[in-house]
C-alpha cells in the first residue's frame, strides 16, 4: 500500500511532528507510515485522512 502523506503534508506545510500530534501518534510512527515501512490500521488510516480533511483513498493508494 502506497500513501501520499508526504505530499499532503507539504501542501499543508506540516512537519511530521505536527501531523503526529494531530493524529495522536509519535513522530517516528508517522515517519514509518509515510515511508511505507508500516501499514496503519484502518482506524489510524482514517484519523490520518481526517487530519488532512481528505478521503482515505486520497491518502492511501493500492500498489
Amino acid at each position: 500500500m502506497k500513501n501520499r502523506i508526504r505530499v499532503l503534508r507539504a501542501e499543508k506545510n506540516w512537519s511530521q511532528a505536527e501531523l503526529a500530534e494531530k493524529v495522536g501518534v509519535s513522530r517516528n510512527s508517522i515517519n514509518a507510515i509515510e515511508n511505507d515501512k508500516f501499514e496503519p490500521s484502518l482506524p489510524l488510516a482514517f484519523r490520518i485522512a481526517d487530519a488532512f480533511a481528505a478521503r482515505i483513498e486520497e491518502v492511501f493508494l493500492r500498489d
Partner: protein
Amino acid sequence: MIVLPLMIVPALFLTVAPWLKTAIGGGMTSLIAAGLAMSVMAYSLYLSFRAQHCLDEVQLAGGQFAARWGMGIGAVAFAMLSMLPPFWDFAAALLRDAADDSGASRRIIILAVMFGFGGVVILQTIGMFVAKLMWWRARR
C-alpha cells in the same frame, strides 16, 4: 527521573546490607531484601503498564517484534557466552567473592542459579533492546 528508584533502592540496600546484617541480623536483612525486591518489581511493573498505555500501534508493533526476537537473541547470547572460558572465570570469581565460608556449598549453588537466571534475564532484556533498535532502524 521516574526510573531512578529502580536503581537507587537496590544500590542503597547493597551499600547498607553489611551494616544491617550486623545491626539487626541476617534474617531480618533477608526479610527487608525480599520486601524491597517485591516493591521494586511492583514499581517496575507499574511503570511498564503506564508506558504501554501511551504507546501507539506502530510502537506496540515494535515492542511485539522486540519481545518475539529479543528473548531468543538473549538466550542465544547466553549460550554463546557460556562457551567462552573467560565468562566462567568471571562467574567463578564473582561467586568466590560473594560466597563466604559458612554454608558455602549451599550458597554457591543458590548464587550460581541466581547468577544464571539473572544473566539470562539481563541478556534477554539487552536482546529485546537490540531487536527494537533494529526494528526502528529498518523503518527509518
